[in-house]
């Protein structure tokens, strides 16, 4: 239960973004309450991803997303060394057919953003089918162990003095003459606290509080996604591959489960939907009701056309998540952070970020806004 009913800052959502924002304000002397719906932190989108520490390579059609990843990469590696996993080699292959960039454009793009990129040795490019792959590059990209990252962040927010309450579901926000009231349900018990600023960092559940509070829904796109967890053959161990730039795939170590994730642009999203202004569909409800039939056979069949060794991967499990995207990102597959300050109510802010290592951008944006420190 919250120890008080009045806070300077309330952060809804104990994912990586929520924890960083909470820590930021606590270190600056603010009284911060951090709420998490589940009984553990970083269990959803912050955990269900390919655990990739982006270095820009993944976004050749969005220079800004690529560049910010490139800039954030060394900082993230320096800030969280204990969770960085870099005992593997990372390769990017450029598709021949269906690719939206060619090898020359990719190399030029890497050169432009200052990302290391050299042609892979023939022992690596030789394992691909040359009919489908134009060229393979050796790049510098790491993975992170999300369970270690979670422990690190928990330790940091505790040191900073953030008050964390688990199993607490934020239901709605209300504006009063004295500020904002946040109505919470903690193990079915209603609790109300007041705060000068409330940050909604609930990712796919962003519109849940908006809907309950009578605030217009933010137009968002949702995808029910699956990432297969696999065991790889010896020839693929200590290596990771991403094929660019179109309906291709990526296979990478997933340190927190000691397995590899196989993600496919075409088969990872099982279906999609958009928020409708007059009809809110709860992504959590969709997630809960989904049958979760794996598309691993399709992923494997298609991926093995490019990299035949994938036929020898053994399926172990799948990670499921409702991925949330901005409709504006459909054009270029960019991944900007959505930050809507004072959205619907003064002091109520919505944050939706898709890239863990880009968290520094939202911190910098908050830093630039004096109203948080009045």
């Amino acid at each position: 239960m919250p120890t008080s009913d009045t806070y300077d800052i309330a952060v809804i959502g104990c994912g990586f973004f929520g924890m960083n924002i909470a820590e930021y304000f606590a270190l600056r002397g603010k009284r911060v309450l951090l709420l998490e719906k589940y009984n553990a932190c970083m269990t959803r989108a912050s955990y269900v991803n390919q655990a990739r520490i982006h270095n820009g390579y993944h976004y050749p059609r969005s220079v800004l997303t690529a560049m910010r990843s490139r800039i954030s990469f060394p900082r993230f590696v320096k800030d969280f060394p204990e969770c960085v996993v870099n005992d593997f080699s990372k390769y990017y292959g450029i598709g021949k057919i269906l690719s939206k960039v060619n090898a020359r454009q990719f190399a030029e793009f890497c050169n432009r953003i200052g990302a290391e990129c050299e042609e892979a040795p023939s022992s690596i490019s030789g394992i691909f089918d040359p009919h489908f792959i134009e060229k393979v590059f050796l790049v510098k990209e790491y993975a992170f162990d999300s369970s270690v990252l979670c422990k690190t962040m928990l330790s940091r927010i505790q040191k900073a003095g953030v008050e964390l309450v688990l199993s607490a579901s934020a239901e709605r926000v209300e504006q009063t003459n004295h500020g904002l009231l946040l109505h919470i349900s903690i193990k079915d018990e209603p609790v109300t606290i007041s705060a000068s600023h409330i940050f909604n960092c609930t990712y796919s559940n962003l519109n849940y509080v908006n809907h309950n509070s009578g605030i217009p829904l933010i137009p968002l796109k949702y995808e029910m996604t699956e990432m297969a967890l696999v065991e790889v053959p010896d020839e693929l161990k200590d290596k990771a591959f991403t094929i660019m730039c179109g309906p291709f795939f990526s296979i990478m170590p997933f340190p927190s489960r000691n397995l590899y994730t196989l993600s496919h642009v075409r088969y990872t999203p099982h279906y999609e939907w958009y928020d409708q202004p007059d009809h809110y569909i709860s992504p959590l409800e969709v997630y809960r009701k989904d049958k979760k039939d794996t598309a691993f056979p399709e992923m494997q069949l298609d991926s093995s056309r490019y990299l035949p060794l994938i036929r020898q991967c053994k399926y172990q499990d799948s990670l499921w998540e409702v991925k949330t995207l901005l409709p504006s990102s459909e054009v270029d597959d960019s991944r900007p952070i959505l930050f809507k300050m004072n959205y619907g109510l003064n002091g109520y802010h919505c944050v939706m970020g898709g890239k863990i290592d880009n968290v520094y951008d939202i911190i910098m944006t908050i830093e630039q806004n004096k109203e948080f420190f009045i």
Partner: protein
Amino acid sequence: MSTRKDVFVSAVVIRPDQEHFQDDLTALSTILASNYLHYEIVVINTVSSNGVLEEKVDAALKQIKHIRYIKVFNNVDDNILFAAGIENTIGDIIIATYPEYLTEHNIKESVDLCFAGNDVVNGLSETKTGLLHKISKQASRKILSRLLSYNIPYNDAFFRCISRRALNEAMETRHFHRFVFIRLANTGEKQTNIELERLRPCKLESRRFLDSFSRAVSAVIFNSTVPLRIMNIGALLGCFITLLIAAYTIAIKLLKDKVVEGWPTLMLASSCLFFFLFMILTFIGEYLIRIIFDNNTAAPYHVLAEKHSSVMLNYNELNIREDSVSSEVNLTQTGRDR
């Protein structure tokens, strides 16, 4: 909130004007920076041209952001420079032209047309030219339209605004560098035209009949076998006529005692045969040139050097958006399934 279009525009300046180099690039940079969130300027030139002085280039690279200067070895044709320039861009929308056509109106209107779904925007401009050149250009454009489906108006200028997907399609084709305009016109994507403004008269656009004629002939030979087929039919016809003449000669010889008066007939027949013979040889020669080109594995151009601005990226811009949807839709987008 920024009113600049959220798109990456590449502006390719071909054979920059030495006299106006700094002003042109400064103005271009201002236009792009005011209208688009992301941009680059690619300046492409040959070593052997009376082009830009190195000092002016170095000064511009220090003062103006987002420029790449590519120097190409050998005095290559402007079409190849054009192809090389657009090939080296990374933008979503690419404008390539001589510096005289890089006005705000031309840039904004062509990018807007691209946004509206036109993958190739052709620039049109009336230039003062001789009557012979005008007639030959109109005639050759009609032939190209018939044979190669090249339906661009005859007064097209050296200006194209292209979407990334149209460029990538064109780059996959044979002889992309040599026939870049034909390849772009034949991508199958939606096209449109705009009337261009000029900063000043364009010195580089050729108004010579011979240039126009030789380009048209080269385009037909490299991209169509119709002339060869016509010549084959002509050759067959020639053979048939030869047979007729031979038959006629034999008939005269059999039927008449004196054949001296056959001299004009002999001369006429010889002239016809030689005419066909040389016509066939000309086209066979052109096709032989094509075979030689096809077997030539040398690169169409070679980059001698590339320099770029001291500042190529805006490191201060954060990847934060206030809105989840865009007010404008780019209909030449290259999203996941488009």
